């Protein structure tokens, strides 16, 4: 019996070990587990093989036809892909959120930096230098003797794990006791559960609460993180309470009490009590490290409240918007410009190493974010002249060497494109040409995952052309720039890099720094009269020093850029994720769909300050003033310009002579006191009178009358 027991326990132990090891060591091969599915698959494979016999041997990839968060590992095969499927790949989230990724990277880096090890320890064990030592090691290896620390053979280990008879007995007794105790407790709990006394419940609850509080305090001291979790629970309870209608005097009992309350003091008290309780429950907990927790809460809550999908969709919406994209890239560019100043050079040298170490961690991200990165890289590559040296300097930010090499290749390709594009562009600088050109590119380079590139503005086209021009000079220039940067990183950090704005920038610089001739005044202000020249120089220097720091021009350009951006009409994205396709967290509507539902607002007229680098003109409409403007064209006018001509001459006395004013404002109908106003006759208006036979009236055509009058007037005036 005892021997059997030992054997049993041993077996159990080993099994346990196996189970524990299983998820780590074994790559899961589901085909072994479920044979029927496997058979089916084999059959299909066979069919495919047959079908591919006709020369068209395209390897059909196993595809998931259904999207969901919970992907069963049994449905996923590794066939088709050349590599082994690793569980960790499947377990990881589809896309780690960017904020977490940064933290993760940091962690990885920290991990990768190994603590300094004593050199002796390693040396001793690893190396076998002398032949004798080598022999010894060989022997040890052959006999499966441990070389390093544990100094125990596997057999010894097993024997150690096995227990003596006494121990086994003791353990059995323990187990029996435990089982008995458990049954007691269970019985007690069952009994207690059936107690219906309210008072008992009350007391119990109070006791529990007290206990919980005590424990919580204890936890707070010992293990703050656990305490935090606990706190969260409490907070959640509070939230539940707030959401529910409990303890708000709205239940059946409370209502009955409310009726009673008028006469019964106790009922009133009970009601009060309940309300107080509600208050107590909904009161926010004041903890020691309040601010931190709150922040954490807020963050988490934010995450809870706003599902990832929403943000992602927003990002998508931003994606196809060219203005936003450009903004994004420029933002990164700025960040990059700032970075080399901050980073001392040794760090820049170190980074590649550390990066290689962090690579396995980052690899998933890279795979998953590849598309985005490529896209952004492409954008960067458009400005390749500045991106390239910079990115070479600091490959640190999120892109590994792989990506770097890709970037280089990309930029080269793009350069070629630009060069070829430039010719086209210069021959006819229209947007259409470029658009027509793009699809062909797409076909050539499916790798790039080109979205048909739109040249947004004529400026862009020009830029493209220019870049093409500059290609020849690029390499020496970038080298030079690098040298300059090394020499004096603080001297005009922005100047060489703001290539895009270069033309404008130079203009503005010129405009502000051109030396204007100085006035030679007869009377020079007192303070300067003595030692004018020296002092002038001195002052100039002083002023230069004083304003070296705040770069007025750059600030202004930035402001202008923001203003321009803000005034640009925004595209409307009407894409509804999940309509007409699979939806869910981590899935984005397809580019085609997005393109289809993106309503591009037509570009407005060019800004007034487009060619004025030193001016920002507000393009907003003055609504208050517009309320005073004419907004309806009067009858005979068909175009607003016609009508504007008639109202351009001012009528008021401020602008006119008295007589002109009076003539302009003369009313059509003037009455005079003391004169009878006769009723209108038909003849006055020019209608025929009732008697048709009256020829004289008929002949008195109004037109003729006026003509005659005019003639008469003329005659009179001549006389």
């Amino acid at each position: 019996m005892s021997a059997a027991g030992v054997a049993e326990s041993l077996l159990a132990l080993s099994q346990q070990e196996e189970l524990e090891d299983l998820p780590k060591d074994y790559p899961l091969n589901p085909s072994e587990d479920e044979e029927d599915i496997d058979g089916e698959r084999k059959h299909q494979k066979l069919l495919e093989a047959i079908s591919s016999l006709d020369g068209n041997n395209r390897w059909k990839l196993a595809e998931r036809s259904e999207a969901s968060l919970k992907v069963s590992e049994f449905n996923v095969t590794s066939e088709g892909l050349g590599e082994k499927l690793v569980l960790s790949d499947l377990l990881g989230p589809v896309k780690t959120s960017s904020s977490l990724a940064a933290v993760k990277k940091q962690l990885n880096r920290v991990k990768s930096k190994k603590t300094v090890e004593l050199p002796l320890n390693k040396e001793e064990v690893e190396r076998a230098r002398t032949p004798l030592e080598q022999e010894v090691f060989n022997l040890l290896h052959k006999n499966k003797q441990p070389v390093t620390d544990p100094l125990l053979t596997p057999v010894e280990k097993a024997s150690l794990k096995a227990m003596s008879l006494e121990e086994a007995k003791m353990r059995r007794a323990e187990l029996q006791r435990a089982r008995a105790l458990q049954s007691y407790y269970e019985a007690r709990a069952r009994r207690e559960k059936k107690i219906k006394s309210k008072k008992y419940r009350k007391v119990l609850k109070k006791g529990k609460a007290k206990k919980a509080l005590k424990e919580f305090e204890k936890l707070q001291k010992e293990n703050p993180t656990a305490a935090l979790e606990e706190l969260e629970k409490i907070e959640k309870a509070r939230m539940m309470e707030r959401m529910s209608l409990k303890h708000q005097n709205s239940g059946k009992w409370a209502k009955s009490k409310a009726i009673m309350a008028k006469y019964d003091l106790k009922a009133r008290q009970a009601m009060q009590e309940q309300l107080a309780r509600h208050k107590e429950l909904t009161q926010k907990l004041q903890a020691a490290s309040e601010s931190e927790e709150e922040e954490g809460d807020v963050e988490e809550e934010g995450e809870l409240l706003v599902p990832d999908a929403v943000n992602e969709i927003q990002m998508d919406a931003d994606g196809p918007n060219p203005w936003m994209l450009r903004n994004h890239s420029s933002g990164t560019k700025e960040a990059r410009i700032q970075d080399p100043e901050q980073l001392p050079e040794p760090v820049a040298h170190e980074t590649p190493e550390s990066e290689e170490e962090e690579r396995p961690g980052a690899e998933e991200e890279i795979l998953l974010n590849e598309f985005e990165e490529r896209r952004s890289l492409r954008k960067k590559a458009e400005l390749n002249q500045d991106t390239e040296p910079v990115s070479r300097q600091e490959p640190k930010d999120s892109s590994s060497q792989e990506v770097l090499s890709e970037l280089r290749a990309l930029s080269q390709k793009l350069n070629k494109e630009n060069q070829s594009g430039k010719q086209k562009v210069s021959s006819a600088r229209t947007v259409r040409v470029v658009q027509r050109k793009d699809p062909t590119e797409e076909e050539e380079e499916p790798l790039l995952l080109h979205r048909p590139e739109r040249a947004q503005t004529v400026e862009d086209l020009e830029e493209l052309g220019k870049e093409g021009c500059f290609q020849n000079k690029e390499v020496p220039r970038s080298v030079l720039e690098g040298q300059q940067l090394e020499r004096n990183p603080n001297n005009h950090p922005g100047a060489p890099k703001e290539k895009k704005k270069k033309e404008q920038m130079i203009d503005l610089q010129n405009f502000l720094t051109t030396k204007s001739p100085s006035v030679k005044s007869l009377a020079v202000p007192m303070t300067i009269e003595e030692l004018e020249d020296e002092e002038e120089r001195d002052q100039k220097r002083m002023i230069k020093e004083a304003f070296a720091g705040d770069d007025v021009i750059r600030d202004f350009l930035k402001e202008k850029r923001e203003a321009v951006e803000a005034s640009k009409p925004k595209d409307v994205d009407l894409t509804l994720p999940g309509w007409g396709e699979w939806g869910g967290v981590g899935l984005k509507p397809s580019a085609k769909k997005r393109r289809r539902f993106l309503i591009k607002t037509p570009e407005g007229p060019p800004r007034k300050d487009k060619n004025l680098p030193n001016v920002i003109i507000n393009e907003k409409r003055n609504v208050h003033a517009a309320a005073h403007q004419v907004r309806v064209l009067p009858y005979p006018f068909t175009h607003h310009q016609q009508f504007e001509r008639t109202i351009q001459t001012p009528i008021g006395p401020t602008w006119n002579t008295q007589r002109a004013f009076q003539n302009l404002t003369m009313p059509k109908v003037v009455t005079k006191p003391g004169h009878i106003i006769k009723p209108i006759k038909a003849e006055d208006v020019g209608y025929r009178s009732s008697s048709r036979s009256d020829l004289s009236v008929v002949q008195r055509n109004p037109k003729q009358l006026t003509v005659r009058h005019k003639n008469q007037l003329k005659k009179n005036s001549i006389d």
Partner: protein
Amino acid sequence: METVPKPSRDVPPKKNRLQAKKKVETSLGWKRKTRRYWEEETSLTAAGASPGPPSNKKNRELRHQRPKNTNIQKKSRFSRAQPPKKPRELRNPEPQRSLSGAQDPFPGPAPIPVEVAQKFCRIDKSKKLPHSKSKTRSRLEVAEAEEQEISIKAARSELLLAEEPGFLEGEDGEDTAKIRQVDIVEAVDIASAAKHFDLNLRQFGPYRLNYSRTGRHLAFGGRRGHVATLDWVTKRLMCEINVMEAVRDIRFLHSEALFAVAQNRWLHIYDNQGIELHCIRRCDRVTRLEFLPFHFLLATASETGFLTYLDVSVGKIVAALNARAGRLDVMTKNPYNAVIHLGHSNGTVSLWSPAMKEPLAKILCHRGGVRAVAVDSTGTYMATSGLDHQLKIFDLRGTFQPLSARTLPQGAGHLVFSQRGLLAAGMGDVVNIWAGQGKASLPSLEQPYLTHRLSGHVHGLHFCPFEDVLGVGHTGGITSMLVPGAAEPNFDGLESNPYRSQKQRQEWEVKALLEKVPAELICLDPRALAEVDVISLEQEKKERIERLGYDPEAKAPFQPKPKQKGRSSTASLVKRKRKVMDEEHRDKVRQSLEQQPQKQEKKAKPTRARPSALDRFLR
């Protein structure tokens, strides 16, 4: 003058209003003559008979009021320019005979030079109008005829602007800047010489000063609390007080009866006897004041960075705008469109209107902070000076580009334009004045027109309207300088009359209040009000089409008329329809063909400017 768009800066001849009201007489070409019901048939014939003789009475009236501008004539040193004779003239064709039968040697109304009349034409004929129907065309013709009539009348009454501006002219090659104030005072008549004076007020620190709109009154406030107003021509003191608080700025409101003082904490308003009428606590820590007379707005710039508009006619704050640029202590108004210009420490000048929360425009002017800004009376030029010791003049007509720039030895701390476009700059204890060629021209910064050294550092500058006088407030008190040619020689007796009585002032006040311009109409282009609001027009049209379900203004499709028997068979109807359609189509094609070469030309242009390989050696 702010809201009013004017082709010329000449004060428009409103003096006709002085005339006794007469019955309306219609001249020959007047189209609006209508027959009145009380008139006899016969009176029609006499209506257009004789245009009234030019009233000499009005001329006489004006003459005794004319301002005593400094017209300098000193031997050969100063001379008066002769106005050039006008070559082209408009002449009425028909000769007229008088009743007595004697021949008029100069028949018809006096001829008017075309240029003078052109000055008053406001219709912009540069834009080509779309094709208009006959009815519309007749309307347009009427408007043009009216304009011509008006401009001729205005040009004719320019005769009444009798005064001419004075000026300094050196003997051959002599620099006018070398002429000192003493020389000028010796040369001019006694009345003009009395306009040069110094007030020694060393006790109460640097002074700010302001002339009233008529140019008759002067208000000044010293930093240590001394506030006084006086009729500076007669030197009669109106009030003098010490507010026992630092005074930052002082400004007359619409008339000389009220003035605002920016004191250390709040804005106070006093009357002409020095009685405090209001203390406006919503405007606190005000550094600069500016008054917009046609809108009755007092603009205040404060240390807290707010630009506040106070309507002084109703006592309400119209707008409080946050400039978001720190402390504001550089402010000026654009007299043409009432826009406020603020100078900031980051080298920008921002343009503000109470209707907009953001600046109308922002101009980067200097590398250092902006120290002073001034805008000339036509709203064409803006002068700025910055901490980089530069003085620049910008064009404000749309482009905002610098026209000329100069480096000054110490940089100008104060700038001001005179009515006729002279630019004065205060640099330390020296005042420099630059002049251009003629009126409203760009002052050339090469040679100063005049310079003057003061006994203290300049703290405030202001040109007196309608007098050739520049008031300078400095640490040693106040100096009134003579600057020949600074001011407009002719004033409008009804608008800003320096000689007006109290009764006239009251009358004017009422009229001015009635003509008050709403604050929200302030915008960069004051003529925008004479334009149709195209955006809402289009919007309404679109809505109407949506509401009706069809476009009521769209051209109806051709419907062939039914012809006589046998002619209007279905086939012929279709044929006719097709004919019209084809004709339309042909028209379209023709048009597009006409446009194509134009487009190609446009396209071809940039190719010509293709960058060549040699371009790289250009720089």
